[in-house]
C-alpha cells in the first residue's frame, strides 16, 4: 500500500482537521462526535440539511457543507456509516426551527443509523424528515435485496435541496423536492482499478490490465460484471444505455448530465467520456441543459467514472442555478 497518510487510523480525523484549517470561513469541524457544520449554523428559520456517510468519497459530503448546500455532514470511518450520536449532534447544531432533512444514501448501515438518529431526534422534540437516495441502475431493484445503492444523484440532490432550503422553502417542500430528484435521477458507474481502504492495506479486488468492472459501487465493492477493457466511447454507451432505458428518459426531456470521476481518473479522461455521453443523450433527443463534470463522489483512488442523468423540472433548474459556497462546489456566491 502506497498512500500519502500518517497512519490508517488517523486518516479521517486528520483530513477533517485539514478541512477546518483550509476553510475557516465556510465550515467548522466538531469532534466527539465528529461532524462538519457550516460556519454560520444554525440559520434561523431555515430547514437544516444533514447528510453523511462513510469517508473515502471526498469531497462528498463534508466538501458540500456551506451556504446553499448542506448545513452539516457526518463522516464515518472509511466506507463505514457514521453513527446515530453524530447525526443527532449535527441535527441539533443546525436546527434553525424549521425542521431537519436527513439525506441518506441507500446502504444498509447508513439507513439503519439514520433511522436510529431520527428516532432519537424526534424523542428530543426535533422535526426530522428523511429521504433515501437510491439511483444506481446497476443494482437490481428487488424486494429481496437491500435495493439500489445511493450514488451520484446524491450530489445533485444536496445541491438542489440546499438551494431550496436557502430560499426559505419549508421542510415538506424541500423533502418533496428531494424525493423528486431521486425519482428522476439515474446513475451507473465503472472501474478500471480497485481501491485500497487504508486499514485493509490491500485492494478490495483486483482487475487485470485488460479488464474493467461495470456496475461498480462507490465502496470498492465489485460490480455486477467484469468485461474486457473497451475504449471510452464504448464505455459511455455501456453506462448511458441502461441509464436512459431505466427511467426511461425520452425525447424532449430536459436533463442534467453529470460525469463523475471515481478519484483516480483525470479530468481530461472525464471530458473524453462527457463528449460521448453528451452525444448519446442528444441522439436520444434529450436536451442537456445543465451539466457537471469532475470528481465529486469518489471511491478513494479508484480509477473509473460514473454517469448520472437527472430529468429536470423548473424548480430543480432554479435551485441548481442558485448560488452555492462550499469547499468543493461554488458558483454565483
Amino acid at each position, binding site marked *: 500500500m502506497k498512500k500519502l497518510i500518517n497512519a490508517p487510523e488517523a486518516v479521517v480525523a486528520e483530513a477533517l482537521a485539514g478541512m477546518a484549517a483550509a476553510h475557516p470561513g465556510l465550515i467548522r469541524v466538531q469532534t466527539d462526535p465528529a461532524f462538519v457544520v457550516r460556519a454560520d449554523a444554525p440559520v434561523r428559520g431555515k430547514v437544516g440539511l444533514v447528510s453523511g456517510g462513510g469517508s473515502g468519497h471526498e469531497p462528498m459530503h463534508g466538501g458540500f457543507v456551506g451556504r446553499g448546500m448542506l448545513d452539516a455532514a457526518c463522516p464515518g470511518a472509511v*466506507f463505514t456509516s457514521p*453513527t*446515530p450520536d453524530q447525526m443527532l449532534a449535527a441535527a441539533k447544531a443546525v436546527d434553525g426551527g424549521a425542521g431537519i432533512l436527513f439525506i441518506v444514501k441507500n*446502504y444498509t448501515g447508513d439507513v439503519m443509523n439514520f433511522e436510529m438518529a431520527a428516532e432519537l431526534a424526534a424523542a428530543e422534540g426535533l422535526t426530522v424528515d428523511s429521504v433515501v437516495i437510491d439511483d444506481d441502475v446497476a443494482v437490481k431493484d428487488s424486494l429481496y435485496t437491500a435495493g439500489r445503492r445511493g450514488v451520484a444523484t446524491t450530489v445533485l440532490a444536496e445541491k438542489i435541496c440546499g438551494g431550496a432550503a436557502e430560499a426559505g422553502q419549508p421542510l415538506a417542500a424541500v423533502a418533496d423536492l428531494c424525493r423528486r430528484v431521486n425519482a428522476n435521477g439515474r446513475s451507473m458507474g465503472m472501474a478500471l482499478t480497485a481501491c485500497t481502504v487504508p486499514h*485493509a492495506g490491500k485492494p478490495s479486488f483486483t482487475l487485470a490490465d485488460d479488464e474493467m468492472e461495470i456496475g461498480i*459501487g462507490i*465502496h470498492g465493492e465489485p460490480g455486477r460484471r467484469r468485461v474486457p477493457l473497451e475504449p471510452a466511447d464504448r464505455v459511455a454507451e455501456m453506462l448511458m444505455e441502461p441509464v436512459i432505458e431505466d427511467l426511461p428518459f425520452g425525447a424532449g426531456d430536459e436533463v442534467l448530465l453529470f460525469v463523475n470521476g471515481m478519484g483516480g481518473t483525470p479530468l481530461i479522461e472525464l471530458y473524453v467520456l462527457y463528449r460521448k455521453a453528451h452525444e448519446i443523450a442528444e441522439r436520444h433527443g434529450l436536451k442537456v441543459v445543465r451539466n457537471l463534470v469532475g470528481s465529486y463522489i469518489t471511491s478513494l483512488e479508484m480509477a473509473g467514472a460514473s454517469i448520472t442523468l437527472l430529468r429536470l423540472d423548473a424548480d430543480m433548474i432554479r435551485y441548481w442555478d442558485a448560488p452555492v459556497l462550499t469547499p468543493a462546489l461554488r458558483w454565483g456566491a
Partner: protein
Amino acid sequence: MTDSLDVAALTAWLDRAAAVLEREKARLTELDAAIGDSDHGVNMARGFSAVAAKLAGAPPADPAALFKTVGMTLISTVGGAAGPLYGTLFLQAAGKATGKPTLDAPALAECLKAGLAGIVQRGKAEPGDKTMVDALGPAVAALDAAAGAPLPQALAAAAAAAEAGMAATIPLVARKGRASYLGERSAGHQDPGATSSFLLLKALADTAAG
C-alpha cells in the same frame, strides 16, 4: 464451571470477545472484502475494545445495566450496519435481564432470543439471507433446546450451532446488506456478519467453560 453468569463473568466474556475480535480482525475484513466493503473486522474490533474500556472504567451494577452499556457503546462506535444491529441485540437483551443479578441458561436463552428478534426487526433479514441471523437463529434454537443442561454445555451447543450456521452461509446468495449487490457472485463466500456472531458466542461458551 458455573451455572449462571454474573456481571464479572459477563465482563470477562466481553473482554475475551474484544481480544478475539482484535485477533480475527484481518480475517473478518478479508471475508468482508470478498463480498462487502472491507470494514467489518476493524469496525467490530474498534467497537468491542471501546466496550471493554467502558466496562473497566465504570463496572455496571447488574447484567441489565451491563447489556445496556454494551449496546449504547456499540451503536456509537461500530458504525456500518453492524453497529445498530449488535447494539440492538444487547439493548433488547438488557430488557430481558432486568431485575436478575445473574443469568442462567434459560435466562440467557431469553436474552438472546429477544436480541435476535430486535436484529430481525431492525435489519429485516430472514433466515437464508446470508446474514448474522443465519448464525444467531440456530444458536437461539440450540440454547433453548439445551437450557436444561449445565450452562457450559448449553452455551457450547449454542456456539456449535452458530458455527454450523456460519458455515452454511457459504453457498447462499446474499439478499440483505451490501453483499446483496453482488447477486449470484456472493455465493461461495462465508458471511462476515455470521462469522462475527459465531465468534461472540464462542467467546461466551469459552468464558462459561472457565
